[in-house]
């Protein structure tokens, strides 16, 4: 792991300014802007620390994190930009690449890291793992492992918001590979047919595992919305201002007019599909470096904020150091926490078995 903070890569991209003028961005205070920046850096540092826990060895000789670990590095501006627009009745659901959204909605990184370590102090008590983070109190409905499976749920959240009479929305995130799941298309149709306030967000990082967009999808991704009469847009995902400006438009329509939209956001992932992916068959190192050099979302926003005079090199450095320390503290917390026990396996399966005094059904629930 390089000691040099990624927030100080030498070649600075030119700062685009136009999206900063969009009302949703122009109205931000300096503190809000710094907060957006800080969140992206916190996500980056969290992911780097979890990567180390997955690949490194612990005292027992094993890795601290098992299974799959899908990192969000490179895509930070999307989760942060979108979630920064959430009001009380706006909801979020995503796939297994879910750490960034979790941090962006305000989940505690200690509980997230502990979940990755499989500890009882984790956000799902060590039961869900990397792909299955949830925080209903923050309107964050996961964290879903089956490609595309979360999209109908997102439509359901939108339905719930509308049914209950709230002015709100649901953002249903998916990857560029997920658009080829049948469930996504059934969900589009329902959202359009029933005028549900769902904004479908395609985080297009160019690849579904080792398959490029060209090798997996016919036509343009977001444009498929047209078949359902759904409004759509495509935007760049490396500028958090652009993400916010684009999403604000469609979230406002969703909340005010109860209409769905599909927003495709171009982005890139720096790491392999999961940490287990050797990432050597489908793209070049040069391609990754090129994106990092010219479009890194943290770099881009740092340049913007430096130009705006909101941030200084020194304050950026401080934010980065704090993010590194936070991730380290999360890892220490996770490490020091206990695992669930065998008795925990059969807890949280049924509401009734967890609330036996209020049980109304009869008969056996478990068969061991």
């Amino acid at each position, binding site marked *: 792991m390089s000691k040099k903070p990624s927030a100080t890569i030498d070649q600075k991209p030119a700062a685009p300014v136009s999206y900063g003028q969009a009302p949703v961005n122009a109205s931000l205070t300096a503190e809000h802007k710094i907060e957006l920046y800080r969140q992206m850096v916190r996500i980056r540092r969290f992911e780097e620390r979890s990567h180390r826990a997955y690949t490194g060895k612990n005292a027992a000789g094993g890795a601290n994190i098992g299974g799959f670990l899908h990192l969000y590095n490179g895509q930070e501006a999307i989760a942060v930009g979108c979630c920064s627009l959430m009001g009380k009745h706006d909801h979020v659901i995503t796939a297994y690449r879910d750490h960034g959204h979790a941090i962006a909605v305000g989940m505690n990184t200690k509980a997230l890291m502990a979940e990755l370590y499989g500890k009882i102090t984790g956000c799902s008590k060590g039961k869900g793992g990397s792909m299955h983070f949830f925080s209903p109190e923050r309107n964050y409905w996961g964290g879903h492992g089956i490609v595309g499976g979360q999209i109908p749920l997102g439509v359901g959240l939108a339905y719930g918001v509308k049914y209950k009479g709230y002015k709100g929305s649901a953002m249903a995130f998916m990857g560029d590979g997920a658009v*080829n799941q049948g469930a996504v298309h059934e969900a589009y149709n329902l959202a359009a047919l029933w005028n549900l306030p769902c904004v479908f967000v395609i985080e297009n990082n160019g690849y579904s595992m080792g398959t490029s967009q060209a090798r*997996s999808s016919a036509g343009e991704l977001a444009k498929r919305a047209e078949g359902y009469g759904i409004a759509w847009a495509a935007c760049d995902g490396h500028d958090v201002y652009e993400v916010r400006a684009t999403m604000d438009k469609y979230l406002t329509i969703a909340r005010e007019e109860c209409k769905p939209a599909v927003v495709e956001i171009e982005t890139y992932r720096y790491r392999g599909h999961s940490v287990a992916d050797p990432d050597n068959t*489908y793209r070049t190192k040069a391609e990754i470096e090129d994106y990092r050099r010219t479009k890194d979302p943290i770099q881009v926003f740092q340049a913007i904020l430096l130009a705006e005079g909101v941030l200084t090199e020194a304050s950026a450095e401080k934010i980065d150091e704090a993010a590194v320390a936070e991730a380290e503290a999360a890892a220490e917390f996770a490490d020091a926490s206990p695992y669930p026990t065998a008795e925990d396996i*059969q807890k949280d399966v049924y509401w009734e078995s967890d609330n036996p005094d209020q049980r109304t059904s009869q008969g056996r629930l478990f068969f*061991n």
Partner: protein
Amino acid sequence: MPQITYREAVRHALAEELTRDPNVVVMGEEVGQFQGAYKVTQGLLEKFGPLRVADTPISEAGFIGMGIGASMLGVRPVMELMFWSFYSVAFDQILNNAANVRYMSGGQINCPIVIRGPANGGTNVGATHSHTPENILAAHPGVKVVVPSTAYDAKGLLKSAIRDNDPVFFLENTLLYGEKGEVPEEEYLIPLGQADVKREGKDLTIVTYGRPVIQSLAVAELLAKEHDISVEIVDLRTIRPLDIDTVLASVRKTHRVLIVEEQKPFCGVGAQLTYMIQAEAFDELDAPISRLCTIDAPAIYSPPVEAEQLPNPQRILKAALALLD
């Protein structure tokens, strides 16, 4: 005999059948250019070309259904599910179409498709990725279900599956892919529906399949050494058709049965076996049939706890000793 891995055994079976029969095609997510999510199909694209080894989008209902349709026309698709856990997305295709088309057409249409991929827990990938649906699949007349435990079995059974004229669901195991076993150079087939006595014994029969076979063999070794107990291990290999005769022969020999399965207990394969054993060999039993399954809850992520949720040597040992008490 050369030692090859379970993964290579599956790969060799695919390569041999692709060579033998031009109707055989291999399809699935990442099977070609990426060389397989678990490297089972490594090298096949180079050898057989993109028409016969095809990468699909993440559209299980679409491509599994397409495979079923193609099989109706005499193509022999071997479809890879990256995980069997994703079968649920294609459930309608698998169970309404593959399982029923022959019956509903009055026997006019065959469906010689193979769907294969890993189905196991133990890799800390959580509840959505750890399904073992052999019981759910086998509950449907019209389909065949195979769960091989060794490299030798995997190769011989997969070749038979590809030549079979009915839909065959072939459930592998990511934790076995790296396990080596003896596999002859010369061609061989293992018929579907033939159990294998993996170890002879006289005191206790363990009926099992998949990875628990390997664990049970280790436990049997230990029981012999440390407790002077002789365990017979029957590996079902195929769940449907089910070789109940081999199971019953073993019961008549040892009079005690422990069923070990890496799936949840309710309506599991072991429940069916238990019914059949008591129905046909009740008088042969010296003790109630015992059953060891995955602890009845969705798969927990936490790595050390998942190991306890699944059958493991310690749990198998305990169950075996309890049965002999």
